[in-house]
């Protein structure tokens, strides 16, 4: 899809502004920025998706267990979530990545773990609300066992909220990856994600602003897109939308 090889040095003169042949201009080595942003995007988005999936799995298990068990299990799990959210994200990432080493495997795990407490809280409150409902009483009276009630009856009713959370987490993941890579904790060169592109572009900011601007715009646009999609999804999936 990219018009040029993202690593092709000398495709154009260095620090050219946007033009018809180079939509986003070129970088310090004359490489086409548009192609670099596209390829960077692939990495950023893949990392974001992986993080989101991890956040969803961990967060859902966390929140659902708390919501079903209640009592001290709930207390313990939720206080842990609070504690995790209280740690500054960059600090957490720094320690975790120092321990695990920054790689395309460790990064999604770290970002996913950072995002899971919010998912956990949301899952927990969704579970608690549903379990108080009449149809759960009806399911119990119908003779279902507890596991069946959770999977067959309850889960379809919290799924919409989880899906929406997926979209919102994706937006946050993009942001986190970009931030971490920007400070050098994330994707390492020669691979380039939007964050690393922004880091490189930043070092040349006195030569040209385009180098840092376009990856940043790409990050913003993607976050906006994920958030809007999440909102639309929330509205579409609400079964009460039908007016009598």
């Amino acid at each position, binding site marked *: 899809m990219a018009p040029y090889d993202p690593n092709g040095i000398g495709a154009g003169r260095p620090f050219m502004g946007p033009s018809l042949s180079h939509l986003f201009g070129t970088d310090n080595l004359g490489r086409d920025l548009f192609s670099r942003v596209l390829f960077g995007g692939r990495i950023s988005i893949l990392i974001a998706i992986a993080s989101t999936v991890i956040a969803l799995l961990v967060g859902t298990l966390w929140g659902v267990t708390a919501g079903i068990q209640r009592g001290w299990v709930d207390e313990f799990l939720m206080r842990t979530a609070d504690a995790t959210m209280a740690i500054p994200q960059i600090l957490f990432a720094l320690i975790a990545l120092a321990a695990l080493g920054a790689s395309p495997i460790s990064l999604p795990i770290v970002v996913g773990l950072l995002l899971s407490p919010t998912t956990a809280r949301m899952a927990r409150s969704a579970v608690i609300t549903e379990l108080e*409902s*009449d*149809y759960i009483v*009806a*399911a*119990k009276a119908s*003779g279902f066992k507890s596991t069946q009630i959770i999977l067959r009856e309850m889960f*379809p*009713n919290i799924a919409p909220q989880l899906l929406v959370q997926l979209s919102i987490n994706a937006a946050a993941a993009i942001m986190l990856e970009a931030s971490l890579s920007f400070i050098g904790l994330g994707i390492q060169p020669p691979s380039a994600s939007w964050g690393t592109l922004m880091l490189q572009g930043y070092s040349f900011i006195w030569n040209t602003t385009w180098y840092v601007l376009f990856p940043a715009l790409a990050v913003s646009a993607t976050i906006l897109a994920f958030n809007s999609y999440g909102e639309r999804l929330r509205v579409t999936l609400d079964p009460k939308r039908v007016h009598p």
Partner: protein
Amino acid sequence: MRKTPIQVAHVSDVSLTYKSKSVAVQALDGVSFELRAGETLALVGESGSGKTTAARALLGLEIPQSGTINILGRDLGDLKAEEVRLLRRQIQVVQQDPFSQLNRRHSVERIVSGPLIAFNIGDKESRREQVTKLLNAVGLESAHLQRRPHELSGGQCQRVAIARALAVEPKILVLDEAVSALDVSVRAQVLNLLKDLQRERGLAYLFITHDLGVANYMADEIAVMFRGNIVERGNREDIFKNPRHHYTIDLLSSVPLVTAARSKDVKREVRALPNVNLSDSCRYRTRCPIGSHQEKCHSTPLSISSGSQTHTWRCHFPGDRED
């Protein structure tokens, strides 16, 4: 010669207290009643009477601190959780809110076949057949099979709930304010349906309601509850023509009727009802026109009096009103 109806459930001297954060609420205090095949017992009461708690205890959803609950010869207190679950095949429930008691993400077919799946009855084919038969029995059609609850009216949802409750052919049906949320004209349809189903299938109904009209129409026996006690019990004649407990009398006179001519001379109370004092011997004492002036009602424990084989009450000065 009327056959003696078979007893299918027996609740005996059950007391149940809810413990919430700081307050303990005694929802049931020494409550006893029986259910018989083909007959309806109505538990009538207002908010705080304990009637819903009694229903939940019978369904095994709440565990009483004392007393026994016996369903088809088996004592719930003796059973393990799995045994209680299996017993649920014999006793089903229809709740008040037509929409929220159905899973909004499931189709009508999936909802009604729930109990069949829970108890592993039949296969997909036979279950669909059974569900269609059940829907017809409650006045719905196979066109409704794939609908979702929000596409149906309140009355239709309630019929789906009834169909679901009948799926495993229980002996007992608990109806917890099952018609209270329905429009007047729809209520009539559902009550007629319930009566027909009872006649056809010999079901025992425990009908929880605050509505005396519904109790009168459906019930063979009526138990009036106030703050966790059954204060009076009897058949229609007993309760509506010859009420003895003052709460029953007050309840009957409070119900606004279309046909009753309003006597302008009767002095009606305007002030708010006084608080109930649960430490008194008779819980109705503070609100009772007689009991609030009587020392006996404050100090002496109550015992059961009866006027006939069907009619019993607990009151020191039953039916004793000047007006």
